[in-house]
């Protein structure tokens, strides 16, 4: 008997075994979050820095910077993922990042507040913005929400340009100081960032925030609110018939998403020492969405995986010079054609099945989902 037929419509008994297995994999996931966290912390705080330390000193700064960027982008992308969790496609995260960055910069430069305080401050301000904007627009669905959030990024830029008294207009704010040390009872809790070490310190800071973000996201998704959100994603009318306060339920994840955007923006302002109206553009907003899609919308770690893959790819393509965007776009299109449901949608079981089927029959079946879903 052929064990792994390449026919996409497997008879139910065999299919049953396979789906049982994949269900087992999914259900077993909540049992190892602590293990995963510890593993991630070791990797991010010991293995990678150790690896970077072995490089040439003049290169280290750049590598730290690139990793920092990945962390920042994945924090923002996690927010986008969370809005998708309530069934909304958010292409406006760049706007929130821009707001966060400006709040951090303005409060530091004009009010002389410590950088450390501006990070939560930026997040909270973005939550307020999220409430004001989210209240009306969260009623929209599907492409309408996508379109209006896309416009939002452009609008954020216009706001910055049109209120130069606060934002310095097109010139931006260029003299953001490096974070100073924080001491408590004589102990130095947070060290002073200097011109020499700030790349590395910012790396640790943003990685720490990133780990926190994903732990929070994990907790949220597995909480009562998370399950309600998931029901919202599948059928809004049904969820509303259960007596759920829809407006609030949509607003809470959206505001958390805005908070993440704001924090990412504030971190970026610190890392780059300056902000301008074009540090977060429409293209960034679109990119966050791409990271989520490419990683896979069905999985919590989709935005992280997507950010790592696409951003690293983008960094490598710097070698292509003027052709960078062109190659990036072509790579995206090819990836999209091969894995339209994102990297995390690939299950090891199915790949194994596919490979064995291919070796056996020489006829690859790329797709096991039947057609005509829409009918």
């Amino acid at each position, binding site marked *: 008997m052929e064990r792994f037929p390449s026919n996409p*419509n*497997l008879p139910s008994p065999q299919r*049953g075994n396979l*789906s049982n297995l994949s269900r087992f994999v999914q259900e077993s996931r909540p049992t190892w979050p602590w293990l995963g966290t510890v593993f991630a912390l070791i990797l991010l705080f010991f293995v990678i820095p150790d690896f970077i330390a072995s490089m040439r000193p003049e290169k280290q700064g750049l590598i730290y910077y690139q990793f920092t960027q990945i962390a920042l982008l994945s924090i923002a992308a996690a927010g986008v993922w969370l809005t998708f969790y309530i069934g909304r496609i958010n292409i406006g995260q760049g706007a929130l990042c821009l707001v966060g960055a400006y709040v951090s910069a303005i409060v530091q430069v004009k009010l002389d507040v410590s950088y450390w305080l501006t990070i939560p401050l930026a997040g909270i301000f973005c939550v307020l913005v999220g409430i004001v904007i989210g209240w009306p627009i969260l009623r929209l669905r599907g492409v309408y929400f996508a379109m209006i959030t896309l416009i939002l990024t452009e609008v954020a830029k216009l706001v910055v340009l049109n209120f130069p008294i606060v934002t310095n207009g097109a010139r931006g704010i260029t003299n953001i100081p490096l974070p100073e040390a924080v001491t408590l009872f004589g102990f130095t809790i947070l060290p002073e960032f200097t011109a020499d070490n700030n790349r590395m310190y910012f790396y640790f800071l943003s990685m720490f925030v990133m780990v926190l973000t994903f732990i929070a996201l994990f907790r949220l998704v597995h909480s009562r609110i998370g399950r309600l959100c998931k029901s919202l994603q599948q059928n809004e009318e049904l969820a509303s018939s259960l007596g759920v306060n829809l407006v609030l339920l949509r607003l809470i994840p959206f505001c958390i998403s805005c908070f993440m955007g704001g924090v990412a923006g504030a971190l970026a302002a610190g890392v780059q020492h300056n902000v301008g109206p074009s540090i977060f553009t429409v293209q960034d907003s679109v990119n966050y969405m791409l990271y989520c899609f490419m990683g896979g919308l069905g999985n919590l770690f989709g935005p992280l995986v997507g950010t790592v893959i696409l951003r690293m790819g983008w960094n490598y393509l710097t070698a292509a010079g003027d052709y960078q965007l062109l190659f990036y776009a072509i790579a995206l299109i090819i990836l999209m054609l091969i894995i339209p449901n994102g990297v995390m949608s690939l299950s090891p079981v199915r790949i194994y099945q596919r490979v064995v089927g291919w070796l056996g029959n020489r006829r690859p079946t790329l797709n096991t989902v*039947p057609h005509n879903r829409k009918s």
Partner: protein
Amino acid sequence: MTKILDLQNIELYYDHVYALRGVSIEVNEGETVALIGANGAGKSSILRAITGLRRIKSGQIEYKGEKINGLPPERLVEMGIAMVPEGRRVFPFMTVRDNLMMGAFTRHNKAEITQTLEMVLARFPRLKERYHQAAGTMSGGEQQMMVIGRALMAKPKLLLLDEPSLGVAPKLVQDIARSIVAINRDEKVSVLLVEQNSRMALSISERAYVLATGSVALAGKSKEMRDDARVQQLYLGGEL
């Protein structure tokens, strides 16, 4: 009698869940056949399989002795199979006239189309009153008449009806049943009728199949089935 439609051992899956398991059904020329059964028994899946909206996994579908599974829906319309989908599916922003003309999309002879249009309007005078009204603004019963008329515009030999009584006022159900009978008689169209309303379906058909969980549980003359206790039992989800 010659068979106009012959389904042999149809198997159909949605994702990994089967919807039809070894269904065999036939419709003779000039006959009205009813397919009845509870929700989710697979009635609509049979029509989807015939019209090519869903690909079947195994089995054979023959129309006038010719294998038609795998053919795209537009070919089937040209061959003379028209379907009235479940839930009416009018083109809501088009006028009644445009909706009807869409039914004749695959036909090219203008004079013949006009002739069919007059026949349809004579059969459903209500549509004449609403001729220039957007179809989405009509009542459920009127919409149902229009989609039956729209299917007739293709001048079919075989008419597939999916739940024509669903969401229609009880008074209008009778009208619709009567017009199905008339169409079958006057236009020489064979009819395959899928219905939840078994009383209506059994009263206007010659033969009937009762479906339960994806396969044919009972088959026979409609007249005899009307009094068969087993039919009701199947409806309540029982086993034979």
